[in-house]
């Protein structure tokens, strides 16, 4: 275990060193992602200048949903920024290079992607949103929230990573997946609103199949509405590991296939 941790941090240090040479690019990406999040935040605020509550959810509650979703998602994107790169590794023949080295290829790819700093910045933005929301909801928070929220965030990050990995694995079987993946990459937005506003099929889709709702909505709902969402709320910390297991299994199968077909 220490082997892997040590190796991961060695990678991270080196990749960071490599990036420090491209400061302009880094700054631009950083600013762009802040603009992106800022835009969504403005969206939320503007909506709430026109309404008081959305299906019974107040502004601060919505902010918490959004904050949790952003934090989880970008936690995954900063530390585990791998799935969307898998396609390029295969295309450029870089997979072979990884396969002849001891560590698992997925781990190597994770290492080589380093720690994506702009995403880390967005984690901060998400955290700020969470804190702001919490201060506005101070009187409604249960004591166990302090333990639950970090769990939910970690599980959410795992969900996000796993769903992307699942989709990336498809590129081992179907060639044209890159546009599909890009389209699907926007779908996380479904988890940033109360799930009840969507038609039932969509609710099902984003709760059980692409559980983005588990990243923002359900943790918030459970935290603030307790019993009504008990089952979902307890499921939240489990969904992450479950989907991680699923995606890693699919990854194994995908590697096997790579070894059979060489492409």
């Amino acid at each position, binding site marked *: 275990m220490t082997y892997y941790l040590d190796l991961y941090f060695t990678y991270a240090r*080196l990749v960071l060193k*490599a990036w420090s040479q491209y400061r302009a690019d880094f700054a631009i990406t950083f600013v762009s992602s802040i603009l992106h999040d800022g835009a969504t935040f403005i969206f939320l605020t503007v909506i709430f200048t026109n309404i008081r509550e959305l299906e019974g959810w107040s502004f601060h509650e919505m902010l918490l949903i959004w904050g949790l979703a952003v934090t989880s998602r970008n936690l995954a994107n900063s530390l585990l920024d791998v799935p969307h790169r898998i396609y390029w590794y295969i295309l450029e023949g870089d997979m*072979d*290079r990884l396969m002849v*080295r001891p560590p698992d290829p997925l781990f190597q790819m994770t290492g080589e992607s380093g720690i994506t700093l702009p995403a880390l910045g967005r984690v901060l933005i998400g955290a700020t949103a969470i804190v702001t929301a919490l201060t506005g909801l101070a009187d409604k928070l249960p004591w166990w929230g302090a333990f639950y929220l970090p769990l939910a965030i970690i599980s959410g990050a795992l969900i996000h990573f796993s769903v992307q990995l699942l989709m990336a694995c498809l590129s081992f079987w179907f060639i044209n997946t890159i546009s599909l993946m890009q389209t699907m990459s926007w779908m996380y937005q479904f988890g940033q609103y109360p799930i009840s506003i969507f038609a039932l099929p969509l609710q099902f889709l984003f709760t059980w199949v692409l559980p983005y709702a588990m990243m923002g909505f359900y943790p918030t709902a459970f935290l603030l509405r307790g019993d009504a969402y008990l089952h979902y709320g307890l499921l939240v910390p489990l969904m992450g590991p479950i989907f991680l297991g699923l995606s890693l299994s699919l990854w194994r199968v995908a590697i*096997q296939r790579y070894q*059979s077909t*060489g492409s």
Partner: protein
Amino acid sequence: MTESSTVPIIRATHLGKTFRTLRRKPGFVGAIQNLFSTDYEEIKAADNISFDIEAGELVGYIGPNGAGKSTTIKMLTGILHPTAGEVVVDGLVPQRERVRNSKKIGVVFGQRTQLIWDIPPGDSFELMRKMYAIPQVRYKANLQEFIEMLELHQFMTRPVRQLSLGQRMRCELAAALLHDPKIVYLDEPTIGLDVVAKERIREFILRLNQERGTTILLTTHDITDIERLCQRVIIIDKGHLIYDGALAEIKRQYGRLRRVVFSVTDHTTPDSLSLSLAQIGNGLQTQTRDDGSVVVSFDPQQVPAITLTRHIVNNYPVSDLAVEEVDLESIIREIYQQGIVS
């Protein structure tokens, strides 16, 4: 635990690889159809390849492009699963024990770099140290030795992207060897390099093989590489192994051949040439090159050069003529073309 010195370090037995690819239909409807189609075509990239390589050998693994070289190498290194036969490398089946096998081998890809691009090679070496869990003492010793042998000290602190191809290749070699692999696969290590750089790399490879007894499998298109380095060559063509033996043997069999190269000022056909030449002796082969010149290969022991030359000059309008030794390159090309060694 002593290893028996009679067991080859690499043993490939009836190795084969057949690729099944979907016959892909074009267009949108086709894309949907492709999802459900079972219309496959089979491509035999490698067929019935068997060889044994002993520890410490330096073997050249050559063949024309698309011959199946990289497919075989991938099977040896554990990247691909064979569809037939099996391969055992130092007691392990690479596909089944990828991790253990990886620790024993080193691979240098001529076209792809394993170094991190924007930082000095030393940092990538450090990564290797962590990755292969090389003991600090051993690491330092190896690093020192490689820096000396490959003369890396001049540019150890420069980012890899600023290095010339030759400099980078030297670093790649070092990176692949830091963990004392028993077997090293070199895929086109001299490609794109200038003559001086190539020679440096070759010297290093030789030293590596001689001083450390590392088994080396070399894939290359460069004939001089082969001549300088390989005592043994394995030639692959169209998925089949067509030659496995000492380089000296090839040269002996083919080396004594000579060629007469000449141009004719009229359109004498090679056929009429062959016919008339057949009258002077055996073993004469006629070919026309793309530039219109005619090549006659012959065995001087069967037909003396002077006899052949005189016959040609006397009977045909020759504009210029030369007698050449057959070089290794042409021999190999001919082996590729003929597919079998007579």
